């Protein structure tokens, strides 16, 4: 096991280096200029822009810039944003709590909806409940989040005027009010993301349970007179959760990356909206850092998923 782990970890190094090289080259070759707005303003002399480009090292060849970036990254220096001139790590850390809170609770909401509905649907396949759940699930993952997001805003904010649609990370209230305001503004983005998550996870849960429920040991459990509830919870769900756990652990990285579109719609100041605005402003160091961290997390969590898999299902061994 430890040998396996060591080998997997060693493989990670070239993989991450390769990813960083590809990302860097693509971003460096992409069109655009961080000082675009200075370019169209006739009052700003072109030398200012040239000076900034030189100062920020944008005029050096890509290879030189990559080596510089890579060595700095190894030392833990992520560079600074061209636009706000703030260290990239500070920018990301500022956004992280909001992202984790919103996306994390959306994932949680998704699971809380998906598991019971999926299990219940599977125990009564093709019943009325199952039909409705299936229809809703299909609706849920065929409607894109930007659409449901706008619908929610139009209905709950503009028509009913119940919920605010602009998310503010800085709420000055204290105590209960603070919690209340936070929950109120988080309802819509969390619901939009959570319901979309729930839709696909319900389907996974249902098919996993359906697979397990037909197995002989379940019949045995029923035959020996075990209560239905115990059979399902103790014997069926536990085994059916294996694929779902893998799926969820692979989704953990997205908690860090944020949800691009939903964050933009509700103005959630998370990492997703940071990424979008950085892309629009051609702020390469920030884009690079976020995409790189995201791909690193994907690689690491797929390793974690592999290990979890073995822990849940002892038949899988590592060599």
């Amino acid at each position, binding site marked *: 096991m430890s040998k396996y782990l060591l080998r997997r970890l060693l493989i990670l190094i070239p993989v991450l280096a390769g990813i960083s090289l590809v990302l860097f080259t693509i971003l460096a070759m992409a069109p655009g200029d961080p000082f*675009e707005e200075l370019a169209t303003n006739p*009052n700003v002399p072109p030398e*200012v822009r040239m000076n900034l480009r030189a100062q920020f090292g944008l005029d050096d060849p890509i290879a030189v810039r990559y080596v510089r970036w890579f060595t700095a990254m190894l030392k833990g220096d992520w560079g600074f*944003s061209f*636009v*706000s001139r*703030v260290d990239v790590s500070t920018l990301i850390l500022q956004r992280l709590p909001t992202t984790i809170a919103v996306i994390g609770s959306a994932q949680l909401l998704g699971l809380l909806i998906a598991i019971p509905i999926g299990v219940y649907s599977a125990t009564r396949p093709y019943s009325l409940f199952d039909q409705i759940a299936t229809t809703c699930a299909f609706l849920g993952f065929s409607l894109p989040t930007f659409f449901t997001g706008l619908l929610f805003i139009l209905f709950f904010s*503009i028509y009913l005027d119940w919920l605010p649609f*602009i998310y503010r990370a800085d709420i000055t209230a204290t105590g209960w009010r603070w919690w209340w305001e936070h929950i109120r503004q988080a309802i819509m983005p969390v619901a939009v993301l959570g319901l979309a998550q729930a839709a696909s996870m319900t389907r996974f849960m249902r098919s996993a349970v359906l697979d397990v429920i037909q197995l002989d040991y379940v019949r045995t459990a029923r035959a020996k007179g075990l209560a239905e509830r115990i059979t399902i919870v103790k014997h069926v769900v536990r085994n059916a959760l294996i694929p779902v756990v893998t799926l969820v652990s692979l989704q953990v990285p997205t908690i860090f990356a944020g949800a691009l579109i939903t964050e933009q719609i509700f103005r959630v100041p998370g990492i997703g909206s940071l990424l979008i605005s950085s892309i629009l402003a051609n702020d390469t160091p920030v884009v690079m850092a976020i995409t790189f961290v995201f791909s690193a997390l994907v690689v690491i969590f797929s390793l974690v998923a592999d290990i979890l898999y073995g822990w849940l299902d002892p038949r899988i061994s590592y060599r």
Partner: protein
Amino acid sequence: MEERDLRSLIGHVKAGRLSRRSFVQMMVGLGLTAPMASQLLASAGVAHAQAKAVPYKPTKRGGGGPLKALWWQGATLLNPHFATGTKDQDGSRIFYEPLASWDPDGNLIPNLAAEIPSLQNGGVAKDGRSVTWKLKKGVVWHDGKPFTADDCVFTAEFVADPATASRNINTYKDLKVEKIDSHTIKVTFKKPTPFWADAFCGVGGMILPKHAFEAFKGDKSREAPANLKPIGTGPFKYVDFKPGDIVRGELFSGYHMANRPYFDTIEMKGGGDAISAARAVIQTGEFDYAWNMQVEDEHLKRMEQGGKGKADIVSGGNIEHIQVNFTDPNKDVDGERSSLKAPHPFNTDPAVRQALNLLVDRASVQEQIYGRTGIATANFLNQPSRFASKATKFEFNVEKAGQILEAAGWKKGSDGIRTKDGKRLKMLYQTSINQPRQKTQAIVKQAAGKAGIEMELKSVTASVYFSSDIGNPDTYAKFQTDIQMYTTTMTQPDPELFMLQFTSWEAASKDNKWQGRNITRWRSEEYDKLFRSAESELDPVKRAALFIKMNELVIQNIVVVPVVFRPRVAAVSNTLRMEQSGWDSDFWALHSWYREG
């Protein structure tokens, strides 16, 4: 308009036969900025108007609760001299103040200055070589240190240092700023400068505290902690800042203006898009103010019905215009397209340009696309008023365009497209991707087709189009098409830099890495001469007359075809009382914002 006419107009104002306001409007119609027009009057000895004070009713400081403003692009840094866009300037303006700001009529209103310098009070030197500012006494920075002349001197030095790479370097690099006493500074110009109110005024004039930036000059300027935690003299002091997301401030109890500000806290939230920002102010009332409503007027009107806010529209200096390429975009000369060595095959024919000017249906563009947010104009520099010069009026006439082309020898072929000497009138028309622009393109294309000009439309992503990427052929500066359209902004009150973009030596080319300002590559000896004489002209009236002539020359030669003048549009809550100015930051009078009703 000749110099003589200008002088007699100024005489009318002096004698009280013409109102100040009409004069300013008239000048604006002729292509000057309002600030410049009011400077003209000042230099002619017309007393500076009792610039009407910004209306303000509250009788005590504070008690107004929170003020919530929405910018759909969040501020990314809070140093006004590093700003990459207006969002940063506006964010900085919450905390910092200039010596004086521009009101909507182009008058200077003192902020940190005790009074506005003028010839009468001896502030402005008769030879135009210097100006002396008296600073307001008793002003303190947010950290309690006193504001003095040293801060002004320091700000000018800081910005003028090329290593700082500030966007405002042009304003300060040729100035000498001296401290006369603790609250007086003298600004000396290299050459006589009739327009002296550029440095220390408006968005480029915000004063930085010497004690916070002294250790961070030039190369190190990026590291100054105050870039993110500003210490200013403004009505609100810093509480919190998250780049791209939110700027928060709270009432500064030591603010130098009595009873101001009214609001206890301010919040400038960023992100999202213009239309939902308009919703948050006009429909739901979640926010009090939203900036730069680039939203179709139709939507704004619908929201305004029975809503909690309205659109507030004020004139400024933005013109959506079509540029005509005077060089051949399809011919490659020494690896350069649109080279000065290859004149355009048909755009150089005045008949073609005249026809083009007649084919832009500005009235329909305004009516169907922009509504209140884009006003049809024939004038390049500014909005026409009823006083606009007759030389530059607009007309939409497909038939006449056809006749002009016909007379010039452009005959329709069997496919309905005109040709002459084997050259087909086929134009490639480019602009950035932006819905109203694509609609405008379609309107122009349709009319051009009727008159026998074939138009092919091209749209480029804004981030590419407006970039200075030398390797990319699709940038606006390379201009590798026959005509193109975008909005140009005139932010500086003095038109000299703006007018530089039509001088022959500024033509964008490979040699200057397409950094030249003259994108159309139009070259005119007459214009160059006018510009040169304006540069060294001491007499403000003569100088203004020269600028007006230059503007007329550009319009008469149809170097550009103005389409619509785009005023500034903000969404404002019905209870918020504030005044926008097209010549300064949205927050130019933030100290006097209050709520009523």
